[in-house]
């Protein structure tokens, strides 16, 4: 087995297992009390991307963010603690899953559709402004792409030549509403070409193919400093917001679900590696599975023993200034009569 295959499989399995365990442990313990958008079935994007992220790169993501948070070397301890609302969480317990962020690893997300997509402009702009060779990854769903701000963002990204990789995970649903009830186009990448942005459609369940594509796209963006748009056709196995399922609402057919379940990139890749490497793969898988499970256990233990924050109001304002501000000017009349005769002329 090659190293990249090991990494790829490890990432896919890691992201899946973490989410399975969060789902499993959510009820009846109910220690986590926040809405969560799981990405089971959609791990291929973050897993394939993870190898090409360099220190200083940033990810700005929509609400279905767990995979990208983990792919970006986000701390599992801090993520699970965040879901428990604990002080040790990445956001000090103030944000939860929906707005999971980590200043250290430059990972930011939010649940209001498409705001983070727009923020990627400024993030990438700062990299150009400071002459850094980093890139910005901007993740969104097919539903988010319908917001007006996306049009503005794409236009500005190419106009200002910003190093952004836009990744649109097209899972065909916005909550329970199918794409064909929302737009005439069925592929988001089609409409991107009008902005003069290079755009790609990835419609496969082969993680290695996506790995190769992302290798090319990320290095191209680092070189050209121009944005690229990538649409990944995918499917979410879990409900829109979890951990409860929502297929009893019958918004997507069983035939469709079964079809995609058969195409599950993790399952398919596992079979492929198993067939190719046999016992070597099995040993590898056993080892990483064991490590992952232990890591998950540790993170839950960490979260449970962490405490809740005692203060939160002070975080609304930083109440600090740039270092050039050393003292404040005082022009109170009671202290400085000199100002009295400087009345502005009437307008």
């Amino acid at each position, binding site marked *: 087995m090659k190293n990249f295959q090991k990494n790829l499989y490890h990432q896919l399995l890691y992201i899946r297992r973490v989410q399975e365990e969060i789902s499993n442990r959510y009820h009846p313990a109910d220690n986590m009390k926040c809405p969560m958008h799981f990405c089971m079935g959609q791990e291929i994007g973050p897993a394939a991307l993870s190898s090409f992220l360099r220190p200083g790169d940033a990810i700005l993501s929509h609400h279905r963010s767990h995979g990208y948070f983990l792919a970006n070397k986000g701390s599992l301890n801090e993520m699970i603690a965040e879901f428990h609302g604990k002080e040790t969480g990445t956001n000090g317990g103030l944000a939860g899953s929906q707005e999971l962020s980590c200043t250290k690893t430059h990972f930011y997300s939010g649940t209001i559709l498409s705001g983070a997509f*727009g923020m990627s402009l400024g993030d990438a702009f700062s990299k150009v402004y400071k002459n850094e060779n980093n890139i910005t990854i901007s993740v969104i769903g097919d539903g988010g792409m319908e917001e007006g701000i996306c049009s503005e963002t794409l236009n500005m990204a190419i106009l200002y030549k910003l190093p952004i990789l836009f990744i649109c995970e097209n899972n065909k649903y916005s909550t329970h509403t199918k794409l064909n009830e929302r737009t005439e186009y069925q592929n988001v990448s089609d409409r991107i070409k009008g902005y003069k942005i290079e755009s790609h459609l990835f419609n496969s369940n082969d993680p290695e193919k996506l790995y190769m594509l992302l290798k090319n796209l990320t290095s191209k963006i680092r070189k050209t400093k121009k944005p690229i748009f990538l649409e990944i056709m995918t499917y979410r196995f879990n409900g829109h917001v979890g951990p409860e399922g929502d297929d009893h609402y019958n918004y997507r057919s069983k035939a469709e679900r079964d079809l995609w379940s058969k195409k599950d990139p993790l399952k398919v890749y596992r079979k492929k590696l198993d067939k190719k490497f046999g016992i070597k793969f099995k040993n590898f898988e056993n080892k990483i599975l064991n490590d992952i499970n232990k890591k998950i256990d540790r993170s839950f233990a960490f979260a449970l023993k962490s405490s809740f924050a005692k203060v939160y109001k002070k*975080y609304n304002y930083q109440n600090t200034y740039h270092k050039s501000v050393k003292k404040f000017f005082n022009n*109170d009349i*009671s202290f400085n009569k000199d100002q009295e005769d400087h009345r502005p002329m009437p307008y």
Partner: protein
Amino acid sequence: MKKKRLLTFAESINEAQIQAMKLDKNVFIFGLGVEKTGHVFKTTLGIKKKFSSKRIFESPNSEMALTTMAAGAANSHLRPILIHHRVDFMAYTFDQLVNWISLWSFKSSGKSSMPLVIRAIIGRGWGQGPQHAKTLHSMFSYLPGLTTVMPSSPSEAKGLLLSSIMSNDPVIFLEYRALFNTKEHVPEEPYFIELGDVRHRLLGDDITVVAMGPAVLTAIKAQDICKNKITFDLFDLRVMSNYKLNKILKSLKKTKKLLCVEDGWGSGSTSSELISKIVESGVELSEPPVKITWPSSHVPMSNPLEKDFYFDERNIVKAAEKLAKIKI
């Protein structure tokens, strides 16, 4: 005695930006038409020549994405100044203010910050009508995490803008259009005014008057009419929320009378909130507080109607006469 340097409100804003750009190379300016014909009421005049197109540049008509661009850049430690020719355009950017910028520091538990400034022109200009003359400062001030500043004069504009740019919190900086040509002595060196420090503007004994932006000038004009018969202890709020109340409370203990003057709608206004804070503080007033604001109506375009819409110094004098029970 050396003659003191006079600057217009617009020149002060121009100078503040230039000095901020010199103090920190991470300060940059962008927005619609910032580098074109009018140069935003001349406030951006000459900046490109002094710096470069990296530090000041044009943008498409995309207020939402411009705002997220400022937000993303500020989160990465740049200090953007985004300019809107009218505050009314900011209606497009409600999501960015409400769901991203104002809560960014909070939701990161203080680990991330958003040191950006959004400059917007507000208020009265001839015939601007309902879509081009709003103030909206009280709406912004409702949000925790956001600082809304409204300067009242050239020297105030300079110090407050420098502080706003150098603040590590997001600031909405509102410039009342009718003030742009007012003149005042403005010190040359860069100086900073603490955001949240209410300015004691005039010393008086009879009525505590609190105003912000152009209303401070209108109140000064009213004081001129009242001469010594009624004197105002006048305060310039400067910042619409999160200000220190102590100076105003101290004044009220002396005057026991409160008059608020505000260029904007009265309900849910900055003055309403101020009165609420004062009542909550338990300070005793001898008369019910009085609020002079715009009528609860959109701004008419027609010239005579427009004149009728806005209050002026005579309205303040009338209110003062009633409060002080003195006829001028």
